[in-house]
């Protein structure tokens, strides 16, 4: 059939930003998948909790220090994260580079209190169902911290390479910042669940 040109796309920008970017939507979709996973793990925790008159099972409530320190660190990381997202939108390469170094540090910093959180639970994964679910929840969230940390480190290398000054790369940085917001957001209900539900 014959074609009739009714639209000229030439003047569109060569890469979309924000909701006009495919990777933004891809990141959102993966957040939906992983958010569902986190939600289900909390449901499992509450379900197991509902089956027994005593919770935690054969263990005292967890110590608060490590978990609270980690929570404070994660919440504090939101400020530089917001800044780097803004700088990425503005395509300000020098500031983005600095921001990525800062966010790499903020990505690594929670791993230390996270390490102590496992022992703060006063139970091991193979002692009972309570131990199993808390270790799995902490492990699940740790996986997300590590994943985002590695991605941040790779992006840092990328932005210091010859490929860095490119709208596509700035989009990647912005998407990565959005994902870190998600990592922090998913921790807050888990913190309430793991540290305060046993104290009810």
């Amino acid at each position, binding site marked *: *059939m*014959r*074609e*009739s*040109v*009714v*639209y*000229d*796309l*030439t*003047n*569109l*920008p*060569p*890469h*979309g930003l924000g*909701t*006009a*970017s*495919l990777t933004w*939507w*891809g990141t959102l*979709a*993966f957040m*939906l*998948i*992983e958010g*569902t*996973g986190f939600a*289900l*793990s909390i449901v*499992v925790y509450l*379900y*197991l909790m509902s*089956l*027994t008159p005593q919770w935690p*099972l054969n263990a005292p409530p967890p110590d608060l220090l490590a978990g609270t320190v980690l929570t404070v660190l994660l919440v504090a990381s939101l400020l530089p994260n917001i800044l780097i997202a803004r700088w990425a939108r503005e395509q300000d390469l020098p500031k983005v580079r600095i921001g990525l170094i800062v966010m790499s540090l903020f990505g690594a910093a929670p791993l230390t209190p996270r390490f102590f959180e496992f022992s703060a639970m006063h139970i091991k*994964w*193979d*002692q*009972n*169902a*309570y*131990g*199993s*679910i808390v*270790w*799995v929840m902490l492990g699940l969230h740790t996986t997300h911290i590590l994943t985002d940390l*590695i991605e941040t480190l*790779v992006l840092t290398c*990328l932005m210091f390479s010859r*490929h860095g000054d*490119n709208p*596509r*790369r700035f989009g990647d940085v912005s998407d990565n910042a959005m994902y870190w917001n998600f990592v922090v957001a998913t921790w807050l209900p888990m913190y309430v669940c793991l540290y305060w539900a046993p104290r009810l």
Partner: protein
Amino acid sequence: MDEPELDRRLTAIWSTPAGVWGTLSTVDHKTIGRRYIVTAFIFLALGGMLALAMRLQLSQPEARFIGPDRYNQIFTMHGTNMMFLFAVPVMEAVAVYLVPLMVGTRNIAFPRLNAFSYWIYLAGGMLLWIAFAVDAGPDAGWFAYVPLSGPEYAAGKRADIWAQMITFTEVSALAVAVEIVVTVFKQRAPGMSLDRIPLFVWSMLVTSFLVILAMPAIMIASTALILDRLVGTHFFNPAEGGDVLLWQHLFWFFGHPEVYIIFLPAVGMVSTIVATFTRRPVFGYLAMVMALIATGVLAFGLWVHHMFVAGLPRLGESFFTASSMVIAIPAGLQIFCWLATMWAGRPVFKTPFLFVIGFVVIFVIGGLTGVMVASVPFDTQVHDTYFVVAHFHYVLVGGAVFPLLGAIYYWFPKMTGRMMSETLGRWIFSLIFTGFNLTFFPMHILGLQGMPRRIYTYQPEMPWSGVNMFISLSAVILAAGFLLFFIDVIRSAKSGSAAPANPWGASTLEWATASPPPSYNFGRLPVVGSLEPLSDNPETLPVATGLSVNRRELVVTSLVEALPQARESSPGNSIWPLWSALATTAMLIWSIFTPWAVVWGSIPVAITLVGWFWPKGVPEDDS
């Protein structure tokens, strides 16, 4: 520039390299989609052979063809294969091929992820079948209830292989779901607003959200099972505060939406075929879309439907009975819209349409027995009998396989450039429709007579021998139909008559390009002005110009109105998805044997992912 020059330039940048390198590195959604479809049908054939083996064993009481252990593996493999390796993947595979074409774009979103998802799917299927071949196939049923699949009763690695296969297939399914959602949301042709999206595409969009929200549940369940078995957690151990019903809740929270993950794509296929072969749009487009969405939402309210005999609180049972019955409303609404379309149209009884008629008949029967088993008192009587086996085969085969076969006859000309045989198609339809009903309808009777499912034999004193023999003989007719289908596919692909661009006079965008489509799909992207773009003006197609001929480029459009927002690069061929899939496969299989595999195995996975994402210095990456 003129058409030949445009074709030459676009082919140079979009085509897959020839030979092994191209085969392994392609990111063309059509190549990957075709590959997925063929692989899924191979699994169908393998699963069908298992079914025949079961029917042979059950044809007579106390038969000796298969022993109980192998029979347990066979029914587990049949169910697992059909649900995880055939039904879900084949629907996603058809979408991988068709959705980009139907929304008028040049490739799927995230095409390297698409390549990765195929390799992971293939690896999961091979893991399962190789295990079966070496007598390590899973044997705890396709839904692997604990404690039967737990560490106490399922020593060895069979249950671990099943659980890890789950990880493979769900990673693959989730990846494809993400690709479909983003392709539909952001890559529709200019002008294809939400109310102009083809019904098949709507079906795949809803299905993809079901995948995204339901499949994490089975991944969590199977991961918890692996952990219970491998490192001594206690999720399902009641003695240590766990719960066996936890498995069932998580599994069926996934498992009943899975029925719709299989059914909704078929609904989209039916709508497409009905519209084309009645020469008019489906009656009640908006109602159809709302029914699809309602089905997707209600799918999550049904999971306890599968657990009525598990001893749940009465109020909970009442809720799930009500929601199980309510879902009949959107399904019924769709049936009536199709009937209204057929009634008002002028049906052309080609093979695709015959399979649609078969679907309506069989699915309605399955739906009627579905309402029966939605009732707690009735379900208590027939739970785990052959009545349920009959019900879900009517729903799944009628509701999915019949539309799928119709879809293959419908879209095969587009995918291959050749027509399938109309004569053989009618024979195939007759054999499959007759064989199916003769095989599965009598199972309702067996179930009402009390025959349990999953038994490898029965005593001659039971009144089941005659019906079982009848069923087994009928299964041969059904198998003959499928065999003839495979013959028709292979023969037609080689020497079928040439297919024009639009052999059926259809109105959706995939018929606007050649059969088979070129690597770039559309030389100039179509612009859409209605729900039936090819019917607006059969002689002229409105198009948009201005995309690059120097790099792979497509257009990003807005969510609601599909207004152009940006041009966007589409990634080129890459071997890295294969390396990532191999590294992931190695890690997952190794982790069946030791938890340390996750720690050390994740290092090559991370390395291959960096290799995948690092810019290659080509125009798609850096311009």
